């Protein structure tokens, strides 16, 4: 399954918050990257479903903190197929 992530990140990257971080300008559409949003982060080889925790303005740019959610992207795709097709 081809995956197009919402925001590019190295999911190995953690900072002092203990959360994954990346820059907001690495998002395909920065307007969807808001606290509480559930998005796909990483890259096409290693995507993950994440929650946007916050966006922090720094001199180098706006930094997004992400919390990796349980399960993988195929689990979420199956959830959507199962529940929406049953409606």
């Amino acid at each position, binding site marked *: 399954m081809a995956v197009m992530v919402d925001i590019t990140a*190295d*999911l*190995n*990257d*953690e*900072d*002092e918050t*203990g959360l994954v*971080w*990346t*820059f907001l300008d*690495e998002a395909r559409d920065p307007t969807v990257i808001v606290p509480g949003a559930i998005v796909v982060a*990483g*890259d096409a*080889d*290693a*995507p*993950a479903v994440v929650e946007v925790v916050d966006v922090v303005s*720094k*001199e*180098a*740019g706006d*930094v997004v903190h992400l919390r*990796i959610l*349980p*399960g*993988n992207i*195929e*689990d979420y795709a*199956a959830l959507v197929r*199962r529940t929406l097709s049953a409606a």
Partner: protein
Amino acid sequence: MADELRPHVRHDVPPNDTTVVVRGGPDTADKLARHAVRTNRAYQLDGQPFWGVSVFLALDDLGDASLDGLLSGRLRTYRVVHTPTLEQVRAAGFEVLPTFRPPHFTLVVPDATPTTFERLLSALGPGVPNPYHERGRRR
């Protein structure tokens, strides 16, 4: 301007050379370069430009900072991981800096040339399957 990394450098006892370095992959030289450039944008070290790539070290035999704990925890979304020893990484000329919260470390990349990233990729070794990757069984 990039933030100063030094306040986030820990003073851990240096890990043994047999310690396993763990990094979610698969990596390529180009990917490593992109990640190191992101780190460079965010951080400087002692006021100087800094390039680095995040890794975790399997510091414990059990728990979250063990190899199994890392692969089944922080890195569970990765199908493929790189697991060289610290000795392999150091022998290739890369310093390992303890940064932020353990067991997070940063591999210091001395310069941002393609040759260096090819050397780093070689030091990380081949990607291997993560036995704990969640395989989407819950359908």
